[in-house]
């Protein structure tokens, strides 16, 4: 920021970032870079509920951040990570996952909602955390979204072969000398980062939708795992920009509008598959 008055050549692009719409669009595209490949793993490994539990815990993270004067993003990251590690630990011990996740996901949301109600400022603006507030994304938010998303992409690319092998078969991964439990942890960490980053963009209630719907749409048009992940990025970005447009045009809440566009694309893809 300090350099801005000095380096004149980039002033135009900086001015462009003053436009809240441009920032919102960039945030949506940045987020889909991470949700595309991560969402593919969530679909392949049937972790949808897992994503929900982690995302819902983000509301509790908001309360924690407000109580301790931490940045919202950090509070969210810490609580989402704690939730994700807990769930992963329970699943490794062979708990009945469907029930356990159901209990955890909804309890986390309820506790979070009760906890934030103690902060009157948030109370008035609760829907921003539940459904996102992409039109209010600041430059700092934008930097966080892109840094977080790029970190997740880097992590997934680095572990890609091992993650894919462990997803196809944990036994094959084991026999090849890989550690499936460690690869699971990679996904857990990536999920927590995505939750922290996505809270502002689509909100706690719809993060899991942003992971699952574009990936599920991409399934129909892909022949390899890589193609599916890349297609999910493109579909996620298109949904983000389309939802932004819908929100402007009809004055609808932006987070849900993004998911509406994603859902329509999914419906179209199943029609195409049947035709």
């Amino acid at each position, binding site marked *: 920021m300090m350099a801005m008055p000095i380096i004149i050549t980039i002033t135009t692009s900086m001015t462009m970032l003053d436009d809240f719409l441009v920032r919102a669009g960039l945030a949506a595209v940045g987020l889909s870079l991470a949700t595309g490949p991560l969402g593919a793993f969530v679909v392949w490994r049937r972790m949808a509920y897992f994503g929900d539990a982690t995302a819902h815990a983000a509301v509790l993270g908001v309360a924690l951040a407000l109580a301790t004067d931490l940045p919202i993003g950090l509070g969210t990251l810490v609580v989402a990570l704690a939730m994700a590690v807990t769930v992963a630990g329970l699943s490794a011990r062979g708990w009945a996952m469907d029930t356990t996740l159901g209990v955890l996901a909804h309890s986390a949301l309820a506790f979070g909602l009760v906890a934030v109600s103690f902060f009157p400022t948030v109370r008035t603006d609760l829907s921003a955390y539940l459904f996102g507030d992409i039109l209010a994304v600041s430059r700092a938010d934008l930097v966080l979204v892109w840094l977080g998303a790029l970190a997740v992409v880097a992590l997934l690319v680095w572990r890609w072969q091992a993650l894919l092998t462990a997803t196809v078969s944990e036994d094959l991964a084991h026999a090849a000398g890989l550690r499936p439990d460690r690869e699971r942890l990679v996904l857990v960490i990536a999920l927590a980062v995505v939750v922290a980053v996505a809270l502002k963009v689509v909100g706690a209630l719809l993060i899991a939708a942003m992971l699952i719907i574009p990936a599920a749409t991409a399934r129909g048009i892909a022949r*390899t*795992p890589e193609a599916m992940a890349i297609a999910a990025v493109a579909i996620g970005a298109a949904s983000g920009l389309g939802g932004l447009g819908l929100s402007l045009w009809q004055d609808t809440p932006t987070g849900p509008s993004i998911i509406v566009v994603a859902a329509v694309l999914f419906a179209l893809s199943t029609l195409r598959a049947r035709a």
Partner: protein
Amino acid sequence: MSLIAADHICVRFDGNEVLHDVSLQIAPGEIVTILGPNGSGKSTLLRALLGILPVAEGRILRQAGLRIGYVPQRLMIDRTMPITVRRFLSLPVRVSDAAAAEALARVGMAGHGAEQMTALSGGQLQRVLLARALLGNPQVLMLDEPTQGLDQPGEASFYRLIEEVRRDTGAAILMISHDLHVVMAASDRVICLNGHICCEGTPRVVSTAPEYRALFGLGTQGALALYRHEHDHEHRADDGHAHHHHHYHEHDHA
């Protein structure tokens, strides 16, 4: 000098001893079959040798840098994952197109590289799993009930393929089975397992061992006698099926 060995291993699940005091060695180039009824710990033994399961007592000894190829009992790829045969062969180590094509050709699956894994039949899937295992140039190939769900001709041709692999690559082969005569025909050595090793030896020795008869009963003994019979006298294929039944009954009554 053995490639891999189990030295008096015990494996327990929640305090239940599934394997008790099991020792075995696999030498280069031999085909060893582990035979046993359901729940006898066959898969557990294989998984312990692979290092997937921890052993409670005893040790697994491997030659340093041992290359193991593993063909699991079955592979359930989630239908939500699109993956071609060619892409699957590059997991976890990326292989060249030439190497992938050669491996597919060896298992009789040439030209199937572009197909989706989920579209393969049971027999085709087993062959692709074998191709993937061979790409690691293994010194030991471990197969867990590789012919489960295959019909009789499919089973027979899969075992022929295993023998070819041994002949061409010199890899030792350790496989699990609960089907009897075909696998006996393809093995140098059979280990009969029921929580512990009941008996072991050449197929002929094992098939006459009292421990083996106690475990598998008389009907099975008939099938084994059939195996011995076929291999002692080299009958032709053209007097096939009725012949089988004839001898089965003959030995059953004996």
